[in-house]
């Protein structure tokens, strides 16, 4: 019998199957470099048929496999934890159709998030979910992680914008989930698939909703002398019945890192925290909401609230916000980012506690996050070459997570559980909850070959 490598080469060609360990090295981690596992091979399929044929080979040989886009994920979701084959989908990057009349587009999974918005911008449309890595991350990865982004506060996560999927199941069959309409007929398998973190199969075609650009957009920058004041302003804005399209917070450490980078946005480096608040909609409502937001920020101790004067200034603020994670690389060689969601009202109480935890472990922390959804991203700056420090990072992360769960939070807002947060799953789910999830997973992937070792903790030699 042919080896599976030889079979893959027969399907894809020698060039498009990498098995040389030296060339696999760069594939040992994704955007979260803490977790490193060398895959057995990396392949570069260019069509659904190639994906399906390769999956069939691997299923027959019982070799685990997973899909990868740009590798910008932050939960270790695209790491071959049990070895196996990475399907690198970056070459499947064609926009197949754009239908303005029905406000939808059909794309391949390797299309870069921002490339889609750029392709439709001139016609007055955009694709709403905008993760901070949108200039690099792929829509396939966004589907797997049910990715969010600043503007999901108003527009919703990836799941709200995907209408249909063509999927290669873990046994190699190609199926359609959902369609072009708003409601799926039959079981809502689409909803099940989105956010399944690559464990239910590989999406090879994605139909997404396109949104009309709002008539007016205003972006405000408010700076505060304490993180608590900024947090209270966040709650007050939402309590006042205003739904900003985005409501982001950056603390001083983040501001300093951003201002030292190519994405410097003119943020005040002496502020304890800034809020970036964007409102959009009809001209008249935007004018009203800007006034209200300014009032509320001032009432909660904002030193200054400025409105971006033009599109260039707006773009600069957003580039600063979206480059923040990478800019934190200036502080230390490695970065651990957490992704917990807490009730918005708990922000003023939880944020200072998170800083205290970091201080107790002697770690540097920077916070930059989607305040409007209570979606925290505490970033811990550390040096991965120091094993003792790595242990402290892990311990601090666990305490932060426990704190968030205690106040009624969730383990992830948008990055997924992946590899990184598996250990926390029992904090929020009972054995029965996890068993139910494992049974669903087994329906899609009875052999446990599709992105194994992710999402659900493993016990007694099987996915929980």
């Amino acid at each position, binding site marked *: 019998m042919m080896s599976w490598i030889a079979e893959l080469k027969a399907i894809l060609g020698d060039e498009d199957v990498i098995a040389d360990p030296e060339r696999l090295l760069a594939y040992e981690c994704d955007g979260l470099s803490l977790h490193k596992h060398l895959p057995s091979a990396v392949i570069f399929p260019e069509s659904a048929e190639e994906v399906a044929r390769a999956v069939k080979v691997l299923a027959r040989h019982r070799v685990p496999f997973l899909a990868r886009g740009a590798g910008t994920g932050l939960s270790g979701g695209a790491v071959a934890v049990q070895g196996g084959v990475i399907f690198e989908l970056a070459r499947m990057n064609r926009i197949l159709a754009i239908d303005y009349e029905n406000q939808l587009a059909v794309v391949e999974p390797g299309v870069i998030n921002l490339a889609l918005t750029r392709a439709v911008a001139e016609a007055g449309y955009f694709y709403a979910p905008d993760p901070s890595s949108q200039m690099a991350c792929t829509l396939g990865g966004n589907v797997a992680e049910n990715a969010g982004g600043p503007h999901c506060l108003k527009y919703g996560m990836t799941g709200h914008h995907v209408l249909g999927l063509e999927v290669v199941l873990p046994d190699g069959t190609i199926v359609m989930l959902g369609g072009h309409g708003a409601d799926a007929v039959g079981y809502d398998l689409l909803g099940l698939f989105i956010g399944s973190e690559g464990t239910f199969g590989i999406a090879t075609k994605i139909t997404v909703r396109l949104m009309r650009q709002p008539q007016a957009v205003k972006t405000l920058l408010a700076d505060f002398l304490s993180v608590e004041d900024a947090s209270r302003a966040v709650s007050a804005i939402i309590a006042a019945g205003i739904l900003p399209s985005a409501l982001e917070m950056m603390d001083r450490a983040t501001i300093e890192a951003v201002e030292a980078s190519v994405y410097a946005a003119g943020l005040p480096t002496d502020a304890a925290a800034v809020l970036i608040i964007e409102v959009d909609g009809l001209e008249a409502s935007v004018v009203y909401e800007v006034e209200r937001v300014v009032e509320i920020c001032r009432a909660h101790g904002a030193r200054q609230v400025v409105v971006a004067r033009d599109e260039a200034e707006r773009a600069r603020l957003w580039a600063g916000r979206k480059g923040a994670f990478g800019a934190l690389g*200036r502080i230390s060689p490695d970065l651990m980012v957490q992704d917990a969601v807490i009730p918005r009202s708990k922000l003023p109480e939880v944020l200072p506690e998170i800083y205290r935890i970091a201080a107790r472990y002697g770690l540097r922390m920077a916070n930059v996050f989607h305040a409007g959804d209570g979606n925290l991203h505490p970033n811990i700056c550390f040096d991965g070459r120091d094993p003792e420090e790595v242990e402290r990072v892990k311990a601090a992360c666990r305490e932060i997570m426990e704190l968030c769960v205690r106040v009624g939070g969730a383990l992830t807002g948008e990055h997924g559980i992946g590899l990184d947060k598996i250990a926390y799953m029992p904090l929020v789910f009972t054995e029965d909850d996890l068993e139910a999830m494992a049974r669903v997973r087994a329906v899609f992937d009875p052999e446990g070959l599709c992105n194994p070792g992710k999402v659900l903790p493993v016990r007694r030699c099987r996915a929980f």
Partner: protein
Amino acid sequence: MRTALGRALDREAEKLLACIHCGLCVSACPTYLQLGDENDSPRGRLYLMRAAAEGRLPMTSRALAHHIDLCLGCRACETVCPSGVRYGRLLEAVRADLSRAGATPGLWSVRFLLNHIFTSPTRLHWFFAPARWLRRRAFVRRWAKGKFLPARARLALELLLATTPEEMSPGDERRIIPLAASGRRARRVAFFAGCVARELFAHTNRATMDVLAAHDCEVEDPPDQVCCGALHAHAGEIETARALARRNIRAFERSAAEAIVVNVAGCGAMLKEYGELLADDAEYAERARAFAARVRDVSEYLLEIGLRPGPRPLNLTVTYDAPCHLYHAQRVRTAPLEMIRRLPGLTVVPLTEAEMCCGSAGIYNLRHPGLADQLLERKIAHLRRTGADVLLTGNAGCLMHLRRGVQRAGLSMRVLHPIELLALTYA
């Protein structure tokens, strides 16, 4: 012995480690966009470099050599890196190590040319003499199209034919712009003529000197200047690059000119980085920094002293492609466009992906013709949609590569250095 990468790392420790793997660079990387392989992305290449520096990969690793070799060196990744990784410096360092380890897949003939021909203006002049003769011969066009020459030789001929359509030989003293009427010489500048540019782009060089003269500049052409060393540094021949840098520093130190003006983006980037190239040279470090501080791209300099285009309206639609070593390496991003916008009678139309490498990248198009042509086709597709009469770009290599692309695609577009268009406004 410490490796060059090791030393660069000691100095730049935080700059390689500064890569926290966020991946924002991958979509800015032309080779990644074309190949979709992490190993051909800036993040992946840094990962390989880090592995080599930490001993996880040997310097003789074929994977390391291959993927480092495939890098264009366009430095678009530096423009988007939030963490401030100095990719270009690390690339030069690892290439120097690979070259020393004998692991660079380059041709021996390229190495011979770089170390023995490009180091001497006289030898270079004689080397290019047949080339200049050939480019005026009609049969060369047939040879370039014919099948009897090997593909790489045909490619070289096509590039040669794309050098300069205006006939002019080096040393030709004819002026393009009549001497400015005022005859005032308010400023003194030293012109950096370049090596290939001097031999094959004499017309562009003449235009640059004449335009400077029209801006009341006394233009010197320091006699002992040599090749800037960029091709050497990019190919890992770092010691030859340093030797050339020292000669240029000496040649221009004799001049009291307030600026060293250069019209080739790749040379300009190298000259501006002499301070870093010779940082470890006790005798030259300070002099190199002083030299670098005087270097200006011609567009940058003209805007600095106040651009004064001639009166003749050009009535053309033009578009601009940013040379990587101007946009990403020198970070001169607005000056050339600003200059073009102020020329009389021009309609300037934007070019999609104007900041993305055209595939020329020094001698990359000769070494990796397949990938270089894919990038060229991508560029041509965008150019076709502009409907421009003229494409402007300020780098010798890009001019040849793009002209060849435009000719092959059958476009009627002309490809010029912006300074040549500026020169036309005085006629």
